[in-house]
C-alpha cells in the first residue's frame, strides 16, 4: 500500500454516524509522522520545535495551493500595516474561505509563525481567536479507547503548540481559553493538561524573579536608561541625573546622532569616595558594557579607579574622643578568633571603587566627556583628577542582519582601544570645541 504519497491517516475510530471531515489532515504533515509521537524531544533542536518550519516547495499543484492560499491571507494587508487588526482579519478570513476549515492545523502553525511580525505574540485575545479556528466538539474522545490512545494527535500537537507559544511569551491563559480547550479537545486531553499546568505554575512563578523588570518596557531611550540604571543601582539614595536630552525628534523619532541622551547615576557614598580620591591616581571611564532588560540591550559606562595597593591604604584613624559615652576602641591585645571570622569570602573579588555609572546614546569619547563635565558639577574634586578613557572598539555584541545569517563578528578590539590621557585643560578644550 505505501506509495509515493502516503495514505491519509484515518481517525482511530469512526464515531457512528458522524461524518469524517475531509480536511482532517494536510498531506504535508504525514512527512513527519514517523517522527511524530514516539521520538523524544531531544531529536528536535530548533527553538520552536512544535511549530514545524515552513515546508520546502514541492512539486505538484495540490498541496502547495492550500499553503499558498494561506500565505496570501497574510499578505493581503497593505504593506507596512502589520498590526493586530490585520492579523485578526486574516484569521477570520480563513474561516470564510472554506466552511469545513481545510488545513486548519497548517494554518494555525503558519499563524503562530507570523505572530511576531504582526507584533501580537503577547496578546491573549489573539491566541483565543486562533484556538477558535479549530472545529469544536469533533476532536473530543467519546469512548475509553479513544481516550487511551491520543485522539486526533496532530490536532492535539497543534493545540499544545499554541499553548507553548503562549508560555514562551509569558501570556497567562484565561477562562475563555479553558472553555475553548474543553470544547475542542475535551477535559482529558493533552492541551488541557498543559493548560492546567500553565495555570498552576504561572501563578506560582509570577513573583519568582527577585529583580523584576517591568513587562512593558518604556520606548523612550531616556526612560529606558533610567530604568536600567535604577536596576543596576537599587540604592534608594542614589540620584539619577539627565545630563543631556536627545534633541527634539522632528522627523521619524530617531534621536539625532549629534546629541545623544546621557543619563547618569551616583549615590552620596560614591560622591564622598570620589571627593576623597587621591588626585595623583587616575580614574578610568570603561565601557561599554551591555545590560539586557527583557529583550532590549542597553549599554553603560562606568567611572572607576583601581584599588590602592595595600601599602598605600590608609588605616582609618579613630579620633581620640570620638565618642564621649563609650570607648570605641578596646585596649586589648588580641583580635577576633577564627571561629567568628567572616571576612574571607572566596567569591568576593575586591575590585576598585566605582564612582558613577552612565548610559549614553553614543559610545564615543565626546559624549562621555560631556558626562564627565556634568559630573564635575556635583563632584568638584573631579576637576583635579586625570580621567583615562578606556573604551572598547565596538560594543562586542553580535548583530544579526535581517536575512537571519549572522555576520562574521567584528575584529576583537585592541586591549586598550582608545586610550588617551587627558589633562584638565585638554578636556576643557575638547568640551569647548
Amino acid at each position: 500500500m505505501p506509495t509515493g504519497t502516503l495514505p491519509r491517516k484515518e481517525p482511530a475510530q469512526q464515531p457512528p454516524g458522524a461524518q469524517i471531515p475531509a480536511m482532517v489532515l494536510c498531506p504535508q504533515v504525514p512527512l513527519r509522522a514517523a517522527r511524530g509521537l514516539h521520538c523524544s524531544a531531544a531529536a528536535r533542536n530548533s527553538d520552536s520545535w512544535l511549530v514545524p518550519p515552513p515546508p520546502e516547495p514541492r512539486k505538484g499543484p495540490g498541496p502547495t495551493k492550500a499553503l499558498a492560499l494561506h500565505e496570501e491571507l497574510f499578505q493581503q494587508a497593505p504593506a507596512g500595516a502589520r498590526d493586530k487588526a490585520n492579523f485578526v482579519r486574516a484569521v477570520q478570513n480563513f474561516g470564510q474561505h472554506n466552511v469545513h476549515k481545510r488545513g486548519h492545523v497548517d494554518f494555525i502553525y503558519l499563524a503562530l509563525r507570523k505572530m511576531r511580525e504582526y507584533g501580537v505574540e503577547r496578546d491573549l485575545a489573539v491566541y483565543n481567536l486562533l484556538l477558535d479556528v479549530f472545529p469544536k466538539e469533533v476532536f473530543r474522545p467519546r469512548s475509553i479507547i479513544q481516550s487511551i490512545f491520543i485522539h486526533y494527535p496532530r490536532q492535539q500537537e497543534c493545540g499544545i503548540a499554541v499553548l507553548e507559544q503562549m508560555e514562551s511569551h509569558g501570556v497567562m491563559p484565561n477562562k475563555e481559553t479553558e472553555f475553548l480547550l474543553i470544547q475542542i479537545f475535551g477535559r482529558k486531553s493533552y492541551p488541557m493538561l498543559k493548560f492546567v499546568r500553565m495555570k498552576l505554575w504561572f501563578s506560582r512563578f509570577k513573583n519568582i524573579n527577585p529583580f523584576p523588570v517591568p513587562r512593558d518596557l518604556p520606548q523612550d531611550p531616556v526612560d529606558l536608561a533610567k530604568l536600567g540604571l535604577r536596576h543596576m543601582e537599587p540604592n534608594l539614595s542614589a540620584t539619577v541625573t539627565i545630563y543631556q536630552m536627545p534633541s527634539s525628534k522632528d522627523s521619524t523619532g530617531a534621536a539625532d546622532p549629534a546629541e545623544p541622551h546621557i543619563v547618569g547615576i551616583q549615590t552620596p557614598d560614591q560622591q564622598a569616595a570620589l571627593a576623597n580620591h587621591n588626585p595623583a591616581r587616575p580614574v578610568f571611564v570603561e565601557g561599554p558594557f551591555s545590560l539586557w532588560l527583557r529583550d532590549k540591550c542597553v549599554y553603560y559606562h562606568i567611572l572607576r579607579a583601581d584599588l590602592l595597593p595595600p601599602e598605600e591604604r590608609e588605616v582609618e584613624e579613630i579620633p581620640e574622643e570620638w565618642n564621649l559615652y563609650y570607648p570605641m576602641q578596646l585596649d586589648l591585645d588580641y583580635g577576633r578568633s577564627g571561629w567568628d571570622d567572616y571576612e574571607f569570602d572566596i567569591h568576593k573579588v575586591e575590585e576598585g571603587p566605582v564612582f558613577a555609572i552612565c548610559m549614553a546614546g553614543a559610545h564615543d569619547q565626546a559624549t562621555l566627556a560631556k558626562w564627565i563635565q556634568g559630573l564635575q558639577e556635583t563632584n568638584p574634586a573631579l576637576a583635579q583628577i586625570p580621567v583615562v578613557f578606556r573604551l572598547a572598539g565596538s560594543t562586542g555584541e553580535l548583530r544579526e542582519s535581517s536575512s537571519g545569517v549572522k555576520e562574521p563578528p567584528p575584529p576583537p578590539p585592541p586591549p586598550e582601544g582608545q586610550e588617551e590621557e587627558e589633562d584638565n585643560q585638554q578636556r576643557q578644550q575638547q568640551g569647548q570645541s
Partner: protein
Amino acid sequence: MYARLGEIIGLDASIAVTLAAHQAIGLKGIILAGNKEQKARYLPKLASGEHIAAFCLTEPSSGSDVASIKSRATLSEDKKHYILNGSKVWITNGGMANIFTVFAKTEVVDSDSSVKDKITAFIVERDFGGVTNGKPEDKLGIRGSNTCAVHFENTRVPIENVLGEVGGGFKVRVRAAPVRAARFMVSSLAPKMTAAYACMRKQFNKSLSEFGLIQEKFALMAQKAYVMESMAYLTAGMLDQPGFPDCSIEAAMVKVFSSEGAWQCVSEALQVLGGSGYMRDYPYERLLRDSRILLIFEGTNEILRMYIALTGLQHAGRILTARVNELKRGNVSTVVETIGQKLRDSLGRTVDLGLTGKLGVVHPSVEDSARKLEENAYYFGRTVETLLLRFGKTIVEEQMVLKRVANILINLYGMTAVLSRASRSIRMGIRNHDHEVLLANIFCAEAYYQNLFTLSQLDKYSPENLDEQIKKVSQQVLEKQAYICAHPLERTD
C-alpha cells in the same frame, strides 16, 4: 545627699530637669575643671540662683557623635579672645541661662607640629554678645522646662574662660556621675495614686483590686520602685565614700534601669485607670509623657548599655589577656584546664561565693535569691571569657552581644542592691521588712531566669540566638526603606 534632694524635687519632672540642667551639668564643669578665678567669679552667683547655667554640646548633626561638632573657636589677632561661631540645639535652660558651658573645636598644634582640631570647653556669658536663642521647642513632655536652640555668632570669649586646657574638652564632659533620683519618685508615687482608684471602682460586682491582672500591675510597680530605690541609694552611698570613687558604670546602670522601670510603671498605672487614665484631666498622661524623655536624654539607653558592657569588658579583658594569649598560642595545659572547667560546668556545679551559709553576708530569708545571684555571676564570668576569646577587640562592633551583656550586668547589680537592702532591713528590724523580703525574692527570681535566657542567647549556635536572622531582616527592610511583605489579600492570578 543629692539623691534625697532629687527625691523631693522629683515630684515634677520639669522642675527636676531644669534644676539638673543648671546644677548637675551646667555647673559641674566649672566645679570640676575650673581654676580658682573662674570658680570665684561664677560660682557664687550660680549657687544663689541669680544666674542660671546651661550645658551646650549637642548640635543638629551630632548627638552621640561628639567629634563631629561643627562649632569653631578661632583665636583672634590679639590672642586675647576666642571668636566662637556655631549653633547648639536642644539646650535645656537655653532661654533663661546666662552662663553657658560651650564645647567647640579649636586648632591645636601638636607636639609634632601637626595641626589638629580638638574639642575645648568654654564658659560663655550671655553678656559677651552674639548669643541668641531660638524659640522654645514644642516638646512631648517636660513642657515646663525651657529647651531651645542657642546660636553663637562671633562671640568673643576671653581666653581666661577656657575650662580646663585647650584641647582637653572631653575631660570636662561630666559623664553620668550624679544619680538621677527623679525616676524612682515617679514610680513610687504611682501605686499611691492608682490604688485608691483600684479599690474603689467596681466592675462585675468585684472591685478592680480583686482581679489578678490588676494585682500583677501593682506588684510590678512596687517591685520596680523598690529595686530602683535600692540601686540609686547604693550608688549614692558608694559615691559618698571618701575619695573620688569611679562609679560611672553603676550610675549608668541605675539610669538605664530606672528610666525603663519608670516608663513601665507609669504605663501600667495609666492602664489601671483605663479610659480615664488617657484623659488630660488626670495627671497620668503627663507623667507618661514626662517619663518618656528619661530614656533619651543624658545618654540614650542604647549608648549607656554599650558603655556599661564595654567598660566592663575592657576591665575583664585586661585581666584575661594572659590567659587568652596562652589559649590562642595553644598552650596544652591551659587548654586542658579550660576543657575540664567547661565539662564540670555543663554537668551543673554548685557555686558558692560566700554570700550564703553560716558566715554568709545575706540574711537566710533571702538565701535562695543569693544563691541565684552567685550562680548567675559565675556563669556570666565564664560567658564573658568565651566572648572575649571569640571576639577580642572587635567586640565593639557586636552591639547585639553587648546589649545582652549589659542587660545581665544591670540585673546582677539590681539583685545585689536588693539583697543588701533586704538583709539590712531584716537585721535592723525596719517596719514592713517582710514585704521587702517578698519583693526582693520576686525580683531576684525574675532576674535570674531572665539572665539565664540571655546567657543562652550569647552562645554562638544556640536556637535562642537570633542575631543572624535579625540582621538579615533589617538589611532587607532598610534596602527598600519600607515594609516589603505583600498585602495579605494579594493574589497572583
